[in-house]
């Protein structure tokens, strides 16, 4: 656990102290399985996912489109009524899946915040920026004057010049980067314990991407919140997260510390992802992963990746590999890659 609690505002209730002897992680996902009704029965989008996030820890979930990373994020907030979610989602020891709808609602925004993908469309065009930031507090019973004061403080903290006056502006009067800051402000104004950022920077140019990530980064230290960054961009992860979970076809295929995983990926899919990212520190040519992600309705028997995998052997198409510890990473592969030379 790094950093200490410097709250933006003293008036909020501090999260209850964990008196337990063994420090438990902020978020503990165990055996998360999410399925949606499909035309021919339920389709499993996320299967048996385990993941933990500590306080003030930055974890990235990486994967291609359709790998189930956004669904994982959304099921943490139980956003989809149609989805069937099983397993356990423990936030500070409380199982989110056991909460009633009303209790769950009090968790949304206040305990767990989700920052959505596209800042151009996540702001209501007919409401002022200020009222939307304030809403995150108002829905949880904070008074108007108080909410206003805190909204201004947060916008100010996020580098919006003349925040008090800009509160009255409408979203269309803001640039993309500014809107993303507003979205971030909405997410953090209630000082959640966990911030989930779902592709927070896909719609932004590189410079603004960096600014937004830097902001989130500094907030982690200030507020001590845990962050889950969901992205398909491994380049983004490198400078941000401490741990990475790589997802493929709804399953976690590799989890490890960022440095470890980048230096020496164990799962061929991770290696493939890394090989398809341009890097300034290496001279290797780009190697895209052959084939395309499998449909959730037609996942192959055995390891879901074996049809695209260069290292696949006979058993890969028969039995699904379980997660096991290889070196310092958790890997779900029958034939993990060896430690890289010089790593």
């Amino acid at each position: 656990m790094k950093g200490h609690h410097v709250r933006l505002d003293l008036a909020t209730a501090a999260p209850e102290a964990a008196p337990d002897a063994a420090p438990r992680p902020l978020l503990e996902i165990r055996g998360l399985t999410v399925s949606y009704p499909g035309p021919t029965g339920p389709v499993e989008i996320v299967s048996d996912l385990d993941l933990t996030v500590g306080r003030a820890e930055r974890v990235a979930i990486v994967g291609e489109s359709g790998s189930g990373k956004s669904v994982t994020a959304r099921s943490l907030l139980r956003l989809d009524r149609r989805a069937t979610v099983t397993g356990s989602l423990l936030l500070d020891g409380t199982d989110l899946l056991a909460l009633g709808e009303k209790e769950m609602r009090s968790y949304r925004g206040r305990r767990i915040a989700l920052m959505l993908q596209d800042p151009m469309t996540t702001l209501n065009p007919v409401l002022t920026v200020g009222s939307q930031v304030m809403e995150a507090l108002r829905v949880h019973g904070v008074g108007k004057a108080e909410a206003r004061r805190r909204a201004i403080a947060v916008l100010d903290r996020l580098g919006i010049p003349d925040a008090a006056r800009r509160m009255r502006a409408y979203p269309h009067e803001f640039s993309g980067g500014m809107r993303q800051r507003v979205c971030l402000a909405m997410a953090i104004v209630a000082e959640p314990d966990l911030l989930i950022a779902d592709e927070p920077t896909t719609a932004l140019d590189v410079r603004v991407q960096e600014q937004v990530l830097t902001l989130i980064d500094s907030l982690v230290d200030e507020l001590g919140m845990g962050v889950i960054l969901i992205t398909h961009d491994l380049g983004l992860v490198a400078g941000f997260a401490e741990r990475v979970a790589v997802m493929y076809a709804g399953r976690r295929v590799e989890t490890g510390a960022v440095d470890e995983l980048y230096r020496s990926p164990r799962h061929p899919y991770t290696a493939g992802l890394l090989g398809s990212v341009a890097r300034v520190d290496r001279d290797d040519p780009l190697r895209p992963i052959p084939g395309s992600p499998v449909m959730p309705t037609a996942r192959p028997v055995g390891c879901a990746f074996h049809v695209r995998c260069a290292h696949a052997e006979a058993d890969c198409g028969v039995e699904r590999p379980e997660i096991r510890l290889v070196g310092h990473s958790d890997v779900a592969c029958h034939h993990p890659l060896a430690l890289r030379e010089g790593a």
Partner: protein
Amino acid sequence: MTTVAIAATASRPRRKRLPVLDVIAFGAVVVLLAMAVAGPWLAPHDPYQVRLDRALLSPSGDHLLGTDGLGRDVFSRILVGARSSIFAALLAVSGAALIGIVVAMVATIGPRWLDDVVMRLCDITLSLPVMVMALGVAVALGPSLHSAIVAMIVAWWPGFARLARAEMRTVLTAPYVEAATVLGASRARVMTRHVLPNSLDGVYVQATLEIGGATLIMAGLSFVGAGAQPPSAEWGAMVENGSRYLSSAWWISTFPGLMITLTALAFALAGDALRNRSHPDSTLG
């Protein structure tokens, strides 16, 4: 314009400059509403006083718009009739729009089957022409201005319900609606604060356009005798009354008819202007 917008943005977020046409339309609406309110006090003559010795006089200084077959002053009757004609149309449309919006919200929040039932009901009602439906209801309730209003609400709400529901369904999937849910807003709050205000554009425009249309239908109902009853001054009834004298005393029908047209046009234009202003990011304003 651009400089104005930028400067205003810096100082005040709400900037608006009214185009000339909007001003005229709004002005006309205001004048019409004022007429509806103050008509009886402005009328130079008693609109109901029958003076057969002054029947069918052409427009003159004393009778600005002439007199009708019973010697009643057409100008005074138009002023007084504004109240029934415009208020009836306003009432009918706002009633229909209100019911339509409420029904649409119920259909949107409620379970799937409720949505289906409500919408099929709308389809059935919509399959009948408004005039026929309204005429049927008005006659069934007994011809009067009130029946005509009720009849028009009955015939008109489904159009608004469909419009609002379609819009709400679309808005419901907007990312900012999800963003509100993510913040912990309740379903009711999400509906009233985020979905509703963003779904009403169509309803505004439709409603204001329909006020014009409603004035026409209301006049139509009165014209065929299902609406306002004689001797009450109502524009549609006046047109009907004057139609017998059209070849000899054109003013009796023509001026109320012009008022109906003017009202329809003014509200239509005002509705358009309103839509442009309802969205702060609209480029049409």
